[in-house]
C-alpha cells in the first residue's frame, strides 16, 4: 500500500491547520426499542415470537429488536394484501389512489429530518446524504407516481392498462427508504397491493414509513411489511398468491429468484449488481471529472449498485488524474454518520466489511497498487473502510471484474475510444456508465455503443423519479422510475 501523500513534489498539504469542530445532528428521534411486523394495517407480533437485533454499524452496538417473520407471517401478509386488492384498494377510483400517494409524499416531507436520522443510525450513511439525497428522492418518487395514478391510460396509449394484483418486493440495505419508495409508489399508483421485505440490517426506517401509511389512512393491507433474513424473502417470492415479484439486490440472489419464479404466472423485475465503467477522455473537464469520479465511487460508502467502480482513463491524463485523486481523497471526512460534515459513513455490516477486505486483499495479491489517504483515522468501534483506489489494474484482476460494493475504485487505462468501449463492455454486468469529454459528438457515439442501462455524461450518480433506471445482462431487467417504471406493475 502506498500513502497518498507520497507523491512527486510540489505537494499540497491537507492537515489540521483549521479543523472543523464536531457538528452532530441533534434532533431527537422516536427510535423504538422493538419493532413488529406491519400486516393488514396493524403492527403485529410475529407468530414465531422471535426477533433479531438491528445493529448501528457506526458503533457495532445494538439499536433495536426487529420481529423475525416466518412463513406463516408471510402468508398472513399476502392474504391481507389480496383482501385489500379485492376490496377497498382494488375498487377505489384511480384519482382517489393518487390522493393517498400525494398525502404520503407530503407526510414524508414533514418527517424528513427524523427519517433521515433513523436511516443514518441504522444504515451508517452520512446524514448529509440521507438528508439531502435519500429523503428528498423518497418524497419525489411518491409525488411522481401519485401524479400517474389517474393517467395510466395516457402512459400507454391504445392499451387499457390493468393492475396485476399482489406485488412481493424484496429490497436491499444500501438505500432502505429510497428502494422502498421505488417499489411501493409505482405499485400502488397502478392499483396493486404490496408485501415488502426490507434487508435484515436496515428494517427500521420502513417501519416508520408504515406509521406514515397508518396516519395517512391508507386502507388496511395495501402495504404489508415483513422483516427478517433471506428465508423470509424466499417465502415471499415463492408464495403462490403473489402476482408480481420485484427484487433489488445481489446478482447471486437475483439468479435464485429468477429460478424460483420460472414456470409460474408471476411477472418479474430484477435490479442487480454492477461494475460500471466511468470513462474519462483527455479532452474532459478534468477537475469536474475528478469530482465525478469521487462522487461515482465514494457516494454512500460505495454501497451503490450503479457506482462508477471501474475508472477508465485515457493514458495521456492518467498521471494527472491519479495525482488529483490522491489529493482529493485526503479531504474526505470519514466518521460519525450523524456528523453533518461526514462524507463517508460506516460500512453497513460486518459481513460487507469482510467482503470488501477480502476483495481488496485480492487486489494487492494480484499486484495492483492500493492508495489510501495518509491522515484518515477510523473510529475504533463499528465497521469502517478508508476511501481507497487501486492503480495498475488490468481487466483480468478480480477487482476489475467483481462488484466490491465499497469505497474502492479500480483504475484502468485506454488509448482510443474503441478500446474504451471494448473495455467498458467487458463485464457480465451492465447497469450504468459515465462518459467525460468536452466533445458532444463523442458522448453520443459512445452512449450508443455502451451496454449499460443508465449512462451519465459529464456527471455521475444523478437520480430523478422521472428517469428510468435498470440494467442489461446480469444487472437485471425491467425499469424503475418514470413512465417506464409503471410497465412493471401493469398488464
Amino acid at each position, binding site marked *: 500500500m502506498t500513502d497518498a501523500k507520497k507523491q512527486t*513534489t*510540489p505537494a*499540497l*498539504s*491537507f*492537515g*489540521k*491547520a*483549521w*479543523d*472543523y*469542530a*464536531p*457538528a452532530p445532528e441533534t434532533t431527537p428521534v422516536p427510535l423504538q426499542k422493538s419493532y413488529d411486523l406491519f400486516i393488514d394495517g396493524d403492527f403485529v407480533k410475529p407468530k414465531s415470537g422471535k426477533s433479531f437485533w438491528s445493529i448501528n454499524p457506526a458503533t457495532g452496538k445494538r439499536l433495536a429488536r426487529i420481529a423475525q417473520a416466518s412463513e406463516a407471517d408471510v402468508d398472513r401478509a399476502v392474504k391481507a394484501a389480496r383482501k385489500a386488492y379485492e376490496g377497498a384498494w382494488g375498487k377505489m377510483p384511480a384519482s382517489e389512489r393518487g390522493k393517498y400517494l400525494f398525502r404520503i409524499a407530503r407526510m414524508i416531507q414533514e418527517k424528513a429530518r427524523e427519517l433521515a436520522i433513523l436511516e443514518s443510525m441504522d444504515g451508517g450513511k452520512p446524514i*448529509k446524504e440521507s438528508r*439531502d439525497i435519500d429523503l428528498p428522492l423518497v418524497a419525489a418518487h411518491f409525488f411522481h407516481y401519485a401524479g400517474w395514478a389517474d393517467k395510466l391510460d395516457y402512459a400507454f396509449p391504445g392499451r387499457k392498462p390493468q393492475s396485476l394484483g399482489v406485488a412481493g418486493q424484496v429490497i436491499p440495505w444500501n438505500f432502505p427508504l429510497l428502494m422502498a419508495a421505488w417499489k411501493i409508489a409505482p405499485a400502488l399508483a397502478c392499483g396493486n397491493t404490496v408485501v415488502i421485505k426490507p434487508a435484515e440490517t436496515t428494517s427500521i426506517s420502513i417501519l416508520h414509513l408504515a406509521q406514515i401509511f397508518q396516519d395517512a389512512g391508507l386502507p388496511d393491507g395495501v402495504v404489508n411489511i415483513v422483516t427478517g433474513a433471506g428465508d423470509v424473502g424466499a417465502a415471499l417470492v415463492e408464495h403462490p398468491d403473489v402476482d408480481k415479484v420485484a427484487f433489488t439486490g445481489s446478482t447471486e440472489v437475483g439468479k435464485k429468484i429468477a429460478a424460483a419464479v420460472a414456470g409460474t404466472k408471476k411477472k418479474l423485475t430484477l435490479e442487480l449488481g454492477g461494475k460500471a465503467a466511468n470513462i474519462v477522455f*483527455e*479532452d*474532459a*473537464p*478534468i*477537475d*469536474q*471529472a475528478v*469530482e*465525478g469520479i469521487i462522487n461515482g465511487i465514494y457516494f454512500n460508502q460505495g454501497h451503490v449498485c450503479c457506482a462508477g467502480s471501474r475508472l477508465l482513463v485515457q493514458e495521456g491524463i492518467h498521471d494527472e488524474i491519479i*495525482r488529483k485523486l490522491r*489529493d482529493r481523497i*485526503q*479531504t474526505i471526512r470519514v466518521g460519525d454518520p450523524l456528523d*453533518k*460534515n461526514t462524507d463517508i459513513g460506516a460500512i453497513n455490516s460486518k459481513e460487507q466489511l469482510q467482503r470488501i477486505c477480502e476483495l481488496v486483499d485480492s487486489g494487492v495479491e494480484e499486484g495492483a497498487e492500493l492508495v489510501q489517504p495518509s491522515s484518515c483515522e477510523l473510529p475504533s468501534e463499528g465497521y469502517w473502510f478508508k476511501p481507497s483506489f487501486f492503480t495498475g489494474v488490468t481487466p483480468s484482476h478480480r477487482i476489475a471484474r467483481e462488484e466490491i460494493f465499497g469505497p474502492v475504485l479500480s483504475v484502468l487505462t485506454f488509448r482510443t475510444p474503441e478500446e474504451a468501449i471494448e473495455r467498458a463492455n467487458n463485464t457480465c454486468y451492465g447497469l450504468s456508465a459515465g462518459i467525460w469529454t*468536452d466533445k458532444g459528438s463523442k458522448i453520443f457515439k459512445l452512449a450508443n455503443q455502451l451496454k449499460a442501462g443508465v449512462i451519465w455524461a*459529464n*456527471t455521475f450518480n444523478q437520480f430523478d423519479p422521472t428517469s428510468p433506471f435498470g440494467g442489461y445482462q446480469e444487472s437485471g431487467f425491467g425499469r424503475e422510475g418514470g413512465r417506464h417504471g409503471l410497465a412493471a406493475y401493469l398488464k
Partner: protein
Amino acid sequence: MSAKSAVTEFPVPAIDQVGVQERAAKFTKRSIKNEAKLAGLKMAVSMMDLTTLEGADSPGKIAQLCRKARQPMAERYDCPPVAAVCVYPSMVAETKRHLAGTKLGIASVATGFPSGQYPLEIRLDDVRDAVAQGATEIDMVISRGTFLSGGFETVRDEIVAVKEACGDAHLKVIFETGELQTYDNVRLASQIAMEADADFIKTSTGKVSPAATLPVTLVMLEAVRDFYYATGKKIGVKPAGGIRTAKEALQYLVMVKETLGDDWLTPDLFRFGASSLLRDVEFQIAKMVDGNYQGGDYFSLG
C-alpha cells in the same frame, strides 16, 4: 480550449459549468461550529483587504478606515487586524501615513480602474505613481475588451508590463469575471495572468455584477493548484465584491482548505476584497464571545 491553448505554456482544461457549480455548492454544506467558527471568522478578518473605492473618498474617510483596519474590534475580542487597506491611487499617501508602523499592506487599485479603458502608458504611469507614493500592493484590471476579442497575447504582455512597473509591490490581477462571463474564460485568464508573473489573481472590481461567486473562485483556485503542480509557485487568490456575510466568508475558507490545503490558509495567499463584510464578521465574533447578538450601534464604523 482544452489541451494546449496558443497563448499559454501549460494546458488549459475545459470547465463544465454544471459540474463546477455543483462542486461549489457542496462547500456550503459544511457545518462550521464553535471553536472552528470563531477561528475561521478571525482568520477571515486577517485576510481582509478593507476597501473603499468611492468618488467621495476623502482624507477623513481614509483615517476612519485605517483605524478600523488596525484594530477592528475592542481588545477583549482578540481580533486580528485586517491584511491591507485598499484605496484609489490618490489616497495612497494618506493611507500610508495612517498605517505607518504597522504590517498592514497598502493596496492601490491602478491601471485605469475599474474599466482599464486607457492607453497602456497612462495605465503604467498610474501604477508607477501609486508605488512611488507607497503602495505595497497593486490591484490592476485586465483589458476585458481586448480579452473578449481574442487579444490574449496583448493581455499577457500588458500584465508583464504592469508587473515590471510594480517593482517590489505585489501584483493582483483583476479579471472582472462578471464581464468575462464564462468559466472557460476565467480559467484561461487565470493561466495567462499566472504565467505573466501575477502574485495574486482576483475576481472583480466590485463595480460590476455578478462579482465574486463561489464557483468562479473555485475555477481560479483550481487553476492555481494546477500551476503549483506544474511549477511549484504559489499564487494567491482574492475574491472581491459581493461577499457580505460571515457565513459566506466561512464557505470560501472551506473551499480554500479543501482545494489548496493548509498552505493557502494565510493572508499571503488568500484575501477577501470587501467593504461591508467586516461588519457582519464582527457581529458574529461578538455573538460567539458574548453569547448574544448586539445592536449595530455597539460596532464602530469603518
